[in-house]
């Protein structure tokens, strides 16, 4: 769980293995297997490609995690990507705004769409599934209505910065995601609101009774998810220098949820961590990159990704429920307690 548990256990003896270790280990295994299978896989440049291509799913997964922590679900995040991607192009090309203004405006729009989800869920008590389903429809339709099937080419070349700029060889979206993840993890762990998010997910009635402003938390998490969706829209838009209405409407929604769940976030709320979710998303991005690098047949890809993830999560689940014990864990434990 979150914060205070990370403090030294007062018994003192033994080290505590973080809950994320299991799935991180799975990721490591996949990486090593990939490196053995192809010399092109574990290169610095391919790692950046992997992370760059995973950045949008990473952002969505980040936002989705906040929502899942409270026991909600956000089906609209993929469509928000589409909407914001087109809106950004509209602002630059049709309205004529400079790209930084357009970008900020679009982030605001994303957060607003998310907040609207939150407000409706909070005020009406309609299940998040339905509310965000409706928002998914709306956010999917808006760009199609604006552009038809066409896409809008962006001619403001400064816009490239977001998706294509590199700092010391690291693509900007990767840097932005890293910053966002650290900020989010700190926020969740170290602030009052972060604890309250988990309280709402753990038991909403108890949280309310303990004085948590549950409405505010609900609106906040959906707004964060919407904001993350807008980040995704900008990244796609800028990488392709186009506003196109199918952006983010593929596997993105699905993988954003799957990444979080693989990383140990519960669909029922109150369980999981940002780090876990990000490791989960990275795992999915890695497998999907690896399959392309190894040229796995498209027919086999769904099977391969499904089976690897199932095996990985099963291993993780068994480990944490200690139906299975890892030799290296026992070893580490022995070593630490010896030196203590």
């Amino acid at each position, binding site marked *: 769980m979150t*914060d*205070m548990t990370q*403090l030294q256990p007062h018994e003192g003896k033994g080290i505590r293995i973080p809950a994320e270790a299991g799935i991180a280990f799975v990721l490591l295994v996949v990486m090593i297997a990939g490196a053995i299978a192809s010399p092109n896989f574990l290169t610095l440049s391919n790692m950046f490609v992997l992370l760059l291509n995973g950045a949008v799913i990473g952002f969505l997964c980040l936002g989705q995690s906040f929502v899942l922590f409270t026991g909600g679900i956000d089906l609209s995040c993929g469509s928000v990507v589409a909407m914001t991607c087109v809106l950004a192009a509209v602002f630059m090309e049709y309205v004529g705004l400079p790209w930084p203004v357009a970008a900020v405006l679009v982030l605001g729009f994303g957060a607003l769409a998310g907040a609207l989800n939150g407000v409706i869920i909070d005020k009406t008590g309609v299940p998040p599934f339905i509310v965000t389903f409706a928002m998914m429809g709306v956010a999917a339709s808006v760009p199609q209505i604006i552009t038809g099937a066409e896409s809008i080419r962006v001619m403001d070349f400064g816009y490239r910065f977001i998706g294509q700029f590199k700092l010391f060889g690291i693509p900007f979206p990767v840097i932005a995601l890293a910053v966002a993840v650290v900020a989010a993890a700190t926020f969740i762990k*170290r602030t009052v609101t972060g604890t309250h998010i988990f309280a709402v997910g753990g038991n909403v009635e108890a949280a309310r*009774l303990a004085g948590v402003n549950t409405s505010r938390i609900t609106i906040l998490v959906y707004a964060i998810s919407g904001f993350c969706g807008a980040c995704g829209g900008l990244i796609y838009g800028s990488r392709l220098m186009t506003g196109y209405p199918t952006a983010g409407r593929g596997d993105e929604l699905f993988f954003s949820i799957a990444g979080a769940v693989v990383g140990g976030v519960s669909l029922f709320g109150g369980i999981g961590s940002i780090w876990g979710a990000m490791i989960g998303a990275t795992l999915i991005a890695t497998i999907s990159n690896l399959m392309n690098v190894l040229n796995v047949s498209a027919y086999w890809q769904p099977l391969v990704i499904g089976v690897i993830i199932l095996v990985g999560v099963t291993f993780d689940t068994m480990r944490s429920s200690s139906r299975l014990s890892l030799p290296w864990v026992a070893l580490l434990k022995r070593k630490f307690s010896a030196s203590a």
Partner: protein
Amino acid sequence: MSSYKAEGITKSFSGVGVLHGIDFEVRPGTIHGLFGHNGAGKSTLLKILAGAQPQDDGVLTVDGGVVQLASPREALAQGIGCVYQELRLIPNLTVAENLFLGREVTLGGFKCTAEMKNYSKTLLASYGLNIDVTRTVKGLSHPEKQLIEVIANLEGKARFLFLDEPTTALDGNQSTELLAHVRRIALERNIGVVLVSHKLDEVLTVCDEATVLSGGRVVYYAAGTDVSKQAIVDAIVGDAHGKHIAAQREARAVGDVFLRVQGLAGKRLKGADIEARRGEVLGLYGLVGSGRTRFLRTLYGMEPVVAGTIEIAGKPYQPTNPKHAIGSGIAFLTEERKIDGFIPLMSSFQNVVLSTLIKYRRNGFVDIAGARAAAQRTLTSIGTRGRLDAPTKSLSGGNQQKVLLGRIIEQNANLVLLDEPTKGVDIGAKSDIYGIIRRLVDEGRCIVVVSSEEEELVEICDRIAIFQHGYCTTEPKPVGEWSLAKLREAAWAPAAA
């Protein structure tokens, strides 16, 4: 020789030993009382006996034959049933469905719904419960749920029945009657019963044998006339608390009126006129369902106010939501800790400081170490046992209750509303809690306590008021004018309005 016997039972959770070689025996037609401090391992032992958890080591034998219980289902098939401490009803099934869950009456593959309904109705009526058996359990009151669960298990075909604190939510009358039922059924049907409770007086009247656990070991056993209350108390309290001293009551200087409620009515509350003063403990007594819980929840902003006025320290107060109530200096302890008490997967430290986290904020970030230390201090002061940095749900029932009390203490509120504060708490800690209540009052705070334990009210309250049918209109009387009998009599008297 017919009996259910456990020998050398050990159990540990993630390396922490909870039971260290327990020997225990239940005989048909007798009631075996099981006692011990919070976290002593009573519930764990029962779960092992009922097949809900596997033991690490040790053997279970029924009638001399070794049994392996892989699941509660297998235990039930062997005639071993259990009522667990945490209520185990399925909220969205009806009362009748819950009563028959796992042992439905069928005909040709289909449920005999009508038959089960009728039977449930008569059954509940025979226990004095007037409940529509086609309603879902979700909407019932806490005491009703507890009664239904116990009744369901009494009705089963069990030869051995384990009851883990079956009377915590019930009032004195109800628990006496329920235990009388248990006694009767045990004798009539030759059932072996194990009864876990912290209400010694109540239970000892029906017990044939008594065992006390302490720290996962049997520290006391006696049967028949050898059973001595004082010995049990000593065994429970052990050295940790020294001798259990009856609380000292001294006259206090009572301050001016702090809480003034006039004609308060809500959707489910009819009318309450109550005044509570600074430096006083005001007790609220009434039968189950008389409106005490509703009154507290209304004050705390959990239920809408329809009519009436409230003043706190002379200023008008309009409850809107719990956050606002906390901001107005009110703290509230809920009756059902599992429903809206603690966050199950958060650590006990987090649960304690949940309402007061803001206090530990430095430059926007929570001072985690500081918050944790404060929480630990509070929890230690009320003798909380168990892994406090692990999810609260893994604590024993009584310790969970203490975590919630810890939150109340943390809040440092001026008006403290306590709904059944010592539910499931062991006798040692109970006196600690009474001490804390007294300390809070001495600091000039105002405390309102709802309790179904008359002894408790008489022991800690300065004045006691009576609720009836959702009304509270009579002036509270000083505790000196009340006795247990008088309290019951007043609660039973015909409604004033």
